[in-house]
């Protein structure tokens, strides 16, 4: 590790390295801690929290697709209160940066959640989920509406001094327009991307394989789309980007940084290899050493394109 500085800064948030575990793919950290050393990772994002606990969608919630999976968990979570009481103590024990992801169905509710959480020292930043494809209210309605995203960014920013990241939906024509609105309204970074809307049906029963009918597509299948969205944002805005989508190994992570990400999140891969974060860490170190990269942040957005 000696010669490589892996630390990154995303809109005011410093991380010891750019590897972050994505929302909804690590629960609240306790189970995955059995398989990996969370202390080695840059950060961890909580499952989306809502004001009240949510039971989530009825089963079946997931189905495998070619090089991907669909999920419609429906934001099952313990709610803000129980999170503070039951989950934070465990998370405090780790030497990694905690980012709190929040989902809500109105601007006021986002603010209320942030208000309840902002005094918890262990929470270093907020990631605002305006892009969950699997719930009725909120979710994609916000994610597809420039004004709503602007308003949410503005209100949340006014209510906390911690960095605020807005997690964007890829299910739009021009994601960079949303990044710009986030920037204009004071957001510190964007997380891109959330899942793509997809579905799958049983050809004998003719029923959707997922009870919710549609779900969110994640995994390597969406990596080319995620890379294109991050690149589009990078070429049209100077807001910092946390790249997400289909990262399976250190090579994918490097690619994500090259197209514009200051840090990145890994999601689906945790289900298959809960130690992936640490393996990516080791891969990044070797890559940097072999390519004489002193600070990993030098990589961000260094794509070679003649515009």
């Amino acid at each position: 590790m000696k010669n490589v500085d892996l630390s990154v800064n995303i809109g005011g948030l410093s991380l010891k390295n750019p590897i972050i575990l994505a929302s909804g793919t690590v629960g609240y950290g306790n189970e995955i801690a059995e398989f990996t050393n969370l202390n080695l990772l840059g950060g961890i994002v909580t499952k989306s929290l809502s004001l009240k606990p949510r039971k989530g969608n009825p089963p079946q919630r997931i189905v495998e697709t070619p090089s991907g999976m669909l999920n419609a968990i429906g934001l099952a979570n313990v709610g803000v209160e129980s999170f503070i009481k039951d989950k934070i103590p465990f998370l405090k024990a780790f030497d990694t940066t905690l980012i709190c992801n929040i989902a809500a169905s109105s601007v006021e509710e986002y603010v209320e959640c942030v208000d309840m959480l902002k005094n918890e020292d262990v929470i270093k930043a907020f990631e605002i989920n305006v892009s969950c494809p699997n719930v009725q209210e909120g979710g994609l309605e916000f994610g597809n509406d420039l004004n709503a995203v602007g308003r949410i960014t503005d209100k949340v920013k006014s209510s906390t001094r911690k960095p605020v990241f807005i997690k964007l939906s890829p299910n739009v024509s021009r994601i960079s327009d949303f990044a710009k609105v986030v920037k204009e309204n004071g957001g510190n970074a964007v997380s891109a991307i959330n899942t793509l809307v997809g579905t799958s049906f049983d050809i004998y029963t003719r029923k959707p394989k997922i009870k919710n009918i549609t779900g969110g597509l994640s995994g390597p299948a969406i990596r080319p789309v995620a890379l294109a969205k991050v690149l589009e944002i990078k070429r049209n805005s100077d807001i910092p980007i946390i790249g997400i989508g289909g990262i399976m190994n250190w090579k994918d992570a490097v690619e994500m940084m090259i197209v514009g990400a200051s840090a990145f999140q890994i999601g689906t891969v945790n289900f298959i290899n809960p130690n992936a974060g640490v393996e990516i860490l080791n891969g990044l170190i070797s890559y940097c050493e072999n390519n004489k990269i002193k600070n990993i942040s030098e990589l961000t957005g260094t794509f070679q394109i003649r515009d």
Partner: protein
Amino acid sequence: MYIEKAFVESLEKMGEDTFLIKVFSPAISCIVKPGQFCNIKVSENDYPLLRRPFSVCNVDGDYLFFLFDLHGIGTKLLSMKKNGDSIELLGPLGKGFVYDDQYDTAVIVAGGLGAAPFPFLIKNMEPEKNIITLLGGRSKNNLVTYGLKNVSAATDDGSEGFNGNVVELLKSRIGEISSGKFRIFGCGPNPMLKALQEYCIENNFDCQISVECAMACGFGICQGCPIDSAEGVSYLLVCKDGPVFNASQVKL
């Protein structure tokens, strides 16, 4: 819980579409308990994407056995393994059977490959327990008796044993069984488990069932495997709270 690279020691065909794979897995084999499962990576690349869950069928020293049926791409790839190939196990996972308390007769009710977790359970039972295995299948050819004890068969087409399903067989034998203290252990397709559950709840029989459902992670981080709890307020997770539940604990 471990992620363990396990070398294939043998792969045996046990029926038309049924295979028994034996792998060297010293770390998991010494801590696994009957009814637990492993989430298995069947290929060395990223396809298929997800691991596949399989009950630990048996343990012999450092070796684990899995009994599986051909289903789709994952089990196809598994069935093509050669000795010396490796698969990657994540486990042991979930809560297994509770089987060491006070009852005299263990009644195993298995539908098809629902028999998978029982050889290991049977092996671990105190020798003084009486074991009766009721094994159901569509037809004679679907009955795999590997590692089972004292087996009575039920086939839908009557080609072997009792003509009917395995829960009906249980009902027909319940007189003899209920003369002592007994516990029922069930595993199989959902409709069968549902019938078993109903029957046991009605009659207040002591019954544990092992259920299956689609899974991504297998250890509690994806929330992909909910099952209704009997009270109905919240979901339980099949991978973490199960796969073995008391029959009265869940809604199927």
